């Protein structure tokens, strides 16, 4: 998945596992940027008696680089605190939860938000309530008002939300990691099966989201909202989770000590998932984008590009030739490590300079699109991935097509992409599907902050096997 359980180490630590990162100019307020960092992936809604929560011992951060050096100029820190109302019961809630202040809700979390920039550290909010997990319709008969209550408007036109959401990322997880199979095209696979509709594995799952909406001019180097063509129009965004270096366990308490040590990070989707070799994934998670030059060879010659012609014989002959020539994929390096300079895609740029850093690059001068394409920039929609990432962007199909050679023609006009590179997808054809139609595969989104939908309820979401 985007970055769910993507490395051996962090797969054992879901509370600190950064799963998805979104950054986009807010569609309902184009003077702001919304950033969403998801953690605690792959939550099955019926999870009692101990429902999911953030880690009190984890430092969650969302970073913004506004001058292209891969280092944070603005960091938002989120720190959580768990309390219980009643230590005599085994129950998460002892009655209905109709408000985030309901006394029947036994175990709850609150958090602080701190902004760190060149001027120092500023607490933006503290004791901010998270909503409960969606236990089920008896415990929480109406979830939507809880989301509204748990959306906090802070000074400086900052808006935050932290809590459980429906997983907005869609992928045919079971098929893709079964030897790279794409069900709609699997009759062409090396081990063929009849073509079949894709299956959205996370359709009934939840995740924990940290969402923050801030004015654009509070993130840019100039302190203003730049024009899309401006050199400083693009910010780089990534999230990280850190734990203290030592933890001591005893029967009474768990104590941590020492400096915060990064255990997870996420910029562009699917990178540590399928670009970085398994032997380096845990290490990649500890590194900063500023040091990503050390991984550049994996972006330039991704293993997946070599596998596609093998797994789909005769489908990708031009890609196979590109691989055989050991051609460095300058297109992927640009898209994922530096941004796309002007002059490559007419009217578009999200270049941040020569420093190779895996960040989600967002040109904040590009307004939201009224009729967005799930294919983002590949679909002629400059407001979508890889210009930032919206909640509904089909990043799996976009990156599959890019790796398959579709975008190599941007840097070599003599190269002719294989026809399949412009057609492959894993679930539904993103060229013909709209965000609203994603409801057909179990995904829906909110039109306003925090944009990801209310979580699936435990009672009303039985496990199912497609």
């Amino acid at each position, binding site marked *: 998945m985007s970055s769910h359980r993507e490395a051996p180490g962090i797969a054992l630590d879901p509370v600190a596992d950064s799963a998805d990162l979104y950054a986009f100019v807010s569609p309902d307020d184009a003077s702001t940027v919304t950033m969403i960092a998801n953690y605690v992936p792959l939550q099955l809604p019926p999870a009692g008696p101990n429902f999911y929560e953030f880690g009190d011992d984890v430092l969650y951060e969302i970073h913004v680089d506004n001058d292209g050096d891969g*280092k944070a100029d603005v960091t938002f820190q989120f*720190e959580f605190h768990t309390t219980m109302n009643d230590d005599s019961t085994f129950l998460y809630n002892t009655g209905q939860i109709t408000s985030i202040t309901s006394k029947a809700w036994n175990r709850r979390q609150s958090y602080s938000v701190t902004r*760190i920039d060149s001027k120092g550290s500023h607490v933006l909010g503290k004791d901010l309530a998270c909503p409960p997990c969606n236990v089920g319709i008896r415990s929480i008969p109406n979830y939507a008002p809880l989301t509204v209550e748990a959306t906090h408007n802070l000074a400086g036109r900052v808006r935050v939300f932290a809590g459980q959401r429906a997983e907005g990322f869609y992928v045919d997880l079971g098929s893709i990691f079964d030897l790279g199979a794409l069900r709609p095209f699997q009759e062409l696979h090396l081990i063929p099966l009849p073509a079949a509709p894709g299956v959205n594995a996370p359709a009934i799952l939840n995740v924990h989201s940290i969402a923050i909406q801030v004015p654009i001019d509070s993130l840019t180097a100039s302190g203003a909202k730049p024009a899309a063509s401006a050199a400083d129009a693009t910010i780089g965004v990534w999230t990280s989770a850190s734990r203290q270096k*030592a933890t001591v366990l005893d029967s009474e308490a768990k104590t941590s*000590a*020492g*400096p*915060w040590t990064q255990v997870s990070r996420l910029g562009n989707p699917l990178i540590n998932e399928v670009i970085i070799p398994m032997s380096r994934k845990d290490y990649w998670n500890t590194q900063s984008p500023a040091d990503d030059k050390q991984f550049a060879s994996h972006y330039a010659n991704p293993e997946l590009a070599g596998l596609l012609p093998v797994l789909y014989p005769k489908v990708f002959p031009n890609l196979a030739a590109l691989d055989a020539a050991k051609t460095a994929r300058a297109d992927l390096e640009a898209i994922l490590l530096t941004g796309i300079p002007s002059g490559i895609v007419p009217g578009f740029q999200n270049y941040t300079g020569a420093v190779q850093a895996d960040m989600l690059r967002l040109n904040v001068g590009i307004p939201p699109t009224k009729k967005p394409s799930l294919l983002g920039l590949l679909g002629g929609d400059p407001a979508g991935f890889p210009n930032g990432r919206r909640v509904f962007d089909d990043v799996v199909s976009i990156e599959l097509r890019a790796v398959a050679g579709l975008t190599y023609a941007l840097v070599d006009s003599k190269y002719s992409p294989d026809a399949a590179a412009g057609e492959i997808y894993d679930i539904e054809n993103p060229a013909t599907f709209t965000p609203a139609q994603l409801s057909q595969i179990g995904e829906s989104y909110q039109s306003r902050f925090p944009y990801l939908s209310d979580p699936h309820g435990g009672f009303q979401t039985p496990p199912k096997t497609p």
Partner: protein
Amino acid sequence: MPEITRRSFLKQGGATAAAAGALVATPKVLRGPASKSAHKAGAARTTTAAARKATAAHNLVVHVPDTRTDEVRLLVGDREVVLHDRDLVSRLSRAAD
């Protein structure tokens, strides 16, 4: 090792560590990712973490990565202090036997 002996040792060790601190020219203090120069905004990033962990600041974890060397790492609050004191490593090693 009987508890009373361990306590005595820790008292001794604390005194030794203090003395060693004076002997070691510049004990290195590490504060997490900021030490990697990854975060320009990182200089202050430990501030709130330190506040949150105020109670934990009274804990001190001593880590000797390799008892064959002279390196001792002290983890306290959100800091890591690196000492180089062969005598302290020897004392800790003997206490652990």
